């Protein structure tokens, strides 16, 4: 754990010393904020109209109509952005031959993998944290329910964890950062849309496909529910990605 932290700290340093972190975070915040403002103004438009129709006022819920779609959109933006965060992890180490320093140090390979994962997760966490001004703003002007907000953040973080774990695995496959990013993006997107197959597949296969989908497990988190099966899905996804990364790096030494 201590070794992982040393490695994570170095990676974070290189994130903050290079423009990558700032560019990625700025783009993320700009796109997210634009979407958030649109969702919010649509909501306020509906609130104003609700005066004219009695029954419509009942359906207006800031959690369901603003926070939930914001989280869903955030998940899409993260899908696009996280490959850029993770692509350097191992690809750059291998390209600039610095990986040998880690390999010849008294550090377990799994500690290295976990350190890289931790660094990327901290970057993603910072990005999400900076975007939370929007939810804070909602608390200032209205009275949203706090519970679903917190579980929503947990869900987004867990899903981001899945992307990061795929990203780190992809980065261990190649020396080329662009290849790593494309693989990460492609695979994450595939895990997102895999549930769409459920509509045409027979019910058994359909259920499996549905369960495999990354986004499927988000819904309950956004509604304020923490279900063991969802937690199990995300955590096993993350661990499986890191495991594959570990195996790849280990087998590279034999070739």
């Amino acid at each position, binding site marked *: 754990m201590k*070794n992982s932290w040393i490695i994570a700290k*170095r990676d974070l340093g*290189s994130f903050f*010393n290079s423009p990558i972190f700032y560019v990625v975070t700025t783009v993320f915040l700009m796109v997210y904020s634009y979407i958030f403002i649109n969702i919010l103004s649509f909501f306020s438009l509906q609130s104003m109209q609700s005066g004219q129709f009695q029954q419509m006022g009942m359906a207006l819920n800031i959690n369901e109509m603003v926070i939930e779609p914001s989280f869903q959109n955030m998940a899409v933006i993260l899908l696009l952005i996280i490959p850029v965060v993770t692509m350097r992890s191992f690809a750059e180490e291998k390209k*600039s031959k610095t990986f040998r320093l880690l*390999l*010849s140090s*008294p550090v377990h390979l799994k500690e290295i993998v976990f350190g890289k994962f931790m660094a990327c997760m901290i970057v993603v966490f910072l990005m999400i944290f900076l975007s939370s001004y929007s939810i804070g703003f909602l608390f200032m002007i209205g009275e949203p329910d706090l519970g679903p907000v917190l579980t929503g953040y947990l869900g987004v973080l867990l899903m981001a964890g899945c992307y990061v774990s795929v990203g780190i695995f992809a980065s261990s496959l190649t020396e080329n950062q662009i290849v790593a990013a494309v693989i990460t993006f492609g695979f994450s997107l595939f895990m997102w849309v895999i549930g769409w197959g459920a509509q045409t597949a027979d019910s058994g296969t359909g259920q499996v496909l549905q369960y495999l989908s990354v986004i499927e497990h988000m819904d309950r988190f956004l509604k304020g529910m923490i279900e063991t099966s969802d937690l199990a899905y995300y955590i096993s996804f993350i661990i499986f990605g890191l495991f594959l990364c570990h195996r790849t790096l280990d087998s590279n030494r034999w*070739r």
Partner: protein
Amino acid sequence: MIEVKDLTRYYGTRCAINNISFQIEKGEVVGFLGPNGAGKSTTMNIISCILPASSGSARINGFDTFDQSLEIRKIIGYLPETPPLYSDMVVKDYLKFAAGVRGIDGKNIPASVDRVIQKCSLKDVGHRIIGRLSKGYQQRVGLAQAMVHDPEILILDEPTIGLDPIQIIEIRKLIQELAEEHTIILSSHILPEITQICKRVIIINEGEIAAIDSLGGLTASLRKSERLSLKIRLPQDSVIEKLQGLEQVISAVKGEENEYLVECALRSNLQDKIAKLALENNWGIVELKPVSMTLEDIFLKLTLEEKEPAA
């Protein structure tokens, strides 16, 4: 102590090293010599636990490089051919990081970093970004990284490659200083370097060991004949003929200007006779000395001889 036994390593189907065995005692300074692609780096990578061997074993202080690699990695410092430098880091931060991953306690890190900065004369560049340093300084940072945890064994893969002559001398001096306290394995294809620093040489060619011996031993065992060089003031046409006329002389050829190279049987001690000949014929003797075989000659001889049967 390093014990390497029947070490073999394949990359796919290509055999990089084949059945290499040698031993290195504590405190020794050993040079790995061989042309590019001979298997020097592969051997070093296996000893420093970066690559596993296809077969055979390497043990350091009794620990196996495959099963107990963590123990070994604590006591070795490795400088690969390309120094593992994060070019966006500041020298001091980089060394702190290296000290951290090499297992030094947090509170001892500043002292260790200061020690190597002192030793590798990096004081002036401590706060500069590694990517902007000259190649010589980068190489020194690489060396500092390898010794920041004060390892018992230093493995240096071509530490002077790509440096200018002054930098080479500086690095060489540094290695010589280090040799007093550490066991050092050094690889190079630059011959004078090995002759200056190492007491023992392992010559590797095409993945196999061509020779292991001390420098003196190598020179002696490979010499099948002795060579004398004779310099004279007043050359005559008949000099070569007369030299060849002497007993035990194998050949005599004319070298540069008025120098003649006489190859003769081992321990024939022909100096007296050649001197006498020179006096009798009024050649005006200037110099008469034995020519010792350089490591370069040995190296070429070994690596070329190996090839001949195959051809």
